């Protein structure tokens, strides 16, 4: 049996019919053609498929597409500007060599995107905690943490350095 779902993905409305058992990640990838969301384990541990649903990070492999009916969904394809300009976090990932094979990268970016919306100037422990549910086999995480801290430092500077934290 097919179910009608509607969702706003990266600002664009989509409507489709989908089987109840299709995961949100599979739906984004194969029904909508948004293949930037990657599947690494399909049991909710690796975090590669992390997307934002109504502003909150979810595992695209554990949520069904029908559960996201009516939701606002954000994926890695929506991070860069309409002109293709990379977001500060994407820029920082490239500058700090925070990706090697790049397979986990979309999930890392979306997880950190959520963190920075809630906490624009996280400390290193908060960054580590935030990405502790995202597996990366290539980088050893150090460069990812460096990239996130670069963004945090930039945010801190932009905020006027008024918090005075060392």
């Amino acid at each position: 049996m097919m179910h009608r779902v509607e969702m706003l993905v990266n600002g664009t409305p989509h409507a489709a019919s989908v089987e109840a058992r299709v995961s949100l990640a599979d739906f984004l990838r194969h029904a909508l053609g948004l293949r930037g969301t990657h599947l690494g384990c399909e049991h909710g541990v690796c975090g590669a498929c992390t997307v934002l649903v109504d502003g909150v990070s979810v595992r695209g492999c554990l949520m069904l597409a029908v559960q996201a009916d009516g939701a606002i969904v954000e994926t890695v394809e929506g991070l860069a500007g309409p002109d293709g300009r990379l977001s500060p976090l994407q820029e920082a990932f490239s500058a700090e060599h925070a990706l090697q094979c790049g397979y986990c990268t979309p999930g890392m970016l979306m997880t950190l995107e959520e963190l920075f919306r809630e906490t624009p100037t996280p400390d290193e422990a908060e960054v580590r905690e935030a990405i502790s549910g995202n597996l990366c086999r290539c980088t050893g995480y150090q460069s990812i943490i460096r990239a996130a801290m670069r963004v945090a430092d930039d945010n801190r500077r932009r905020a006027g350095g008024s918090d005075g934290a060392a």
Partner: protein
Amino acid sequence: MAPRDPQARAVGRSVPRLEDPPLLTGTARFLDDIELPGVLHCAFLRSPLAHARIEGMDLSEARALPGVHAVFTLEDLMPVLRSGRMPLGASPVGGETRSTPFVLSGREVAYVGEPMALVVAVSRHVAEDAAALVRADLTPLPVVADARRALAPDAPPCRTELENNLLNRFEVGYGDIDAAFAGAAHVLSDDLWQHRGCGHSMEGRGVLAEHRPGGGLCVWTSTQMPNDVFHMLAGMLRIAPDDLRVVTPDVGGGFGPKYCFYPEEAAIPAAALLLRRSLKWVEDRRETFLSSIQERDQFWSMEIAVEADGTVRGLRGRMIHDQGAYAPKPVNLPYNSVTSVTGPYVVPAYHMQVEVVHTNKVPVSSVRGAGYPQAAFTMERMLDLVAVRLGIDRAEVRRRNLIPADRMPYEKKLKARSGATLVYDSGDYPAAQAEVLAAAGWDSFPARQAAALAEGRYIGIGLANAVKGTGRGPFEAGSVRVNQDGSVSVFTGATAMGQGIATALAQICADALGVAPEAVRVTGGDTARSPLGLGGFASRQMVTAGSSVHLAAQAVARKARATASVLLSVPEAELELDGGFVRVRNSNRSIGLDELARVLRGAPGYAFPEGLEPGLAAGIEWRTDALTYANACHVAEVEVVPELGEVTVTRYVALNDSGRIIHPQIVDGQVVGGIVHGLGNALFEYMGYDDAAQPLTTTFQEYLLVTATEVPPLEVIHRETPSPGNPIGAKGVGETGTIPAAAAILSAVENALTPFGIRISQTPLPPETLFGLIEAASRRAPARPAPTEDTPQP
């Protein structure tokens, strides 16, 4: 114009990686991202038992399910196969053996996860539904689950076609080992168990067989060795070689398991030929655990003979290597292990006896490090044993035994698999160790440790050295072409899997041609572009493909100068390449590479410049049989909570010397990523099986990979000893971070627990095992010091 540095403009700098933009924006193309019209989806029926006879498979219900196009057994695939058995991969001889796997198993299964049937359907969901409807009539057969018991006279063979489980027995060694032991001041022994688990790239394997109009087949596969896949498929399938092409799309990590030609890579193309349809199969993580190659178990029984001052006289032992149910490749892995044990040390006499045995488990081949981490762990643990028993500082024992710099090049009296003698080409191991010890504060650690102990805290420090033969030959293909628009194309047999090889090759090419790296596009892993190639393994591609591209780009540069000399009527000596032009020195005259490419492409019937060959392009297969040796020395600090068996790595300082550095960030990233893989091997990663060889760890909840919260601050010191053995001076770096890491970390854990007097002889070391060791030691001697009176309570 200021004279440009003829050496390096891009090489040696961390230029932006060419790979990054698509990967950051979700527009890269991994295997499952490729969409083809009319593609059908596949699932495999896999054995639920570790050893069973297949009495029959009833496929009728599965075939009747709506949406199912076909269900294939091996027999069904045979019309398009020359053999139902896989050829020996990565081998000079090839051919099937009595230990190569089957494309699908029709009569007997020998491990949980072995593919028995292939379902083709409109979606993966339906294909899995149908696989569940296959009624397989299996009769369980006796199982051999432990490599140590596999050789017992009454051990059942892992497959009934074998008489016993011994795949191979061999010895390596040199020197008078008996005399070395007879004259020793001390002989110490230990039994080590080493388990390395799985590769677990975040992207699993996957195959997409594209059926093309006219009957051609393009096989897309997430592999580290597309050319080998091509050659083996061409030998297996009933298809003309010209109708076959193998392409590797973006690969989401390799780490060894993708350096193998798998049954699925034969079955999917065969089914596509039969159905005349494009077919896709994407491994899910459970299938990775059940069917991608692993390294798993080695059991080492070792003896070391030393002088009174800790100088090594000899090392000998026996090693049992768990090969799993099949051998898809020659047994290079245990050979790597035993020929690299002596590592950076002078060991006058050495002897190892090796038994490679079958078990009813997933086949074994290389995972990042490929036998070297076990070798380093063995050697370093034995040296720690010497140090602890003789009361000599662990670093000092190593210093007394390291190969001195003035003995380079140093011959190891062992043979590489090419037959060439192992010769360490360059490096200063004692200086490397001294540098990292100074950076890590080795000498001041005992005072810090004593202070911590006084507070009831158990901190420890450990070190380990490693040497890795890199740049394995015999060659890698690299060709360079200047296009009509002045852009540059590099084609290579080197295979990208995240290392940034495209960027590094572009840097090398860019410098030779006087263009920017962004002007260079690198295509690897396409057998239509590079019919020759070996692919990604053994930390080899920077050395081999880098050298080929360097030489090819230089040849193109010479050709550009020669052509410009004719066209401009200027002697070649007055010409230089810069900014996409050939310029006349001390003049404003120049000609673009684009124009030279257009001239050299020829025009129909018109004159061609005198004395020149068509095409602004060159291809080189730089040859080598020698390895070039990278080295590393790591120091780890840990804190252990004895009551919990909990280990926290608190600091890590690593020195790495991988020769000339092309891209500093990439080299650093390889080292750091490698160390964290080694951290996983030291403390977490365990592919468990029960006595019936049923896998116990088939999710990332049970099989633990390191996460960001376990990684300590890592400091990497880079030394740069150029390799004399190749034209770019590079050595490999992909595995050097992993090799000594477990040895350094567990040395630190043992050191932290000195008051308990425990000995660590295994990887991984999970908390429950460490807790057990501490408990057992505590029962022997209540050595735990009481906290001092004035310890501040938290």
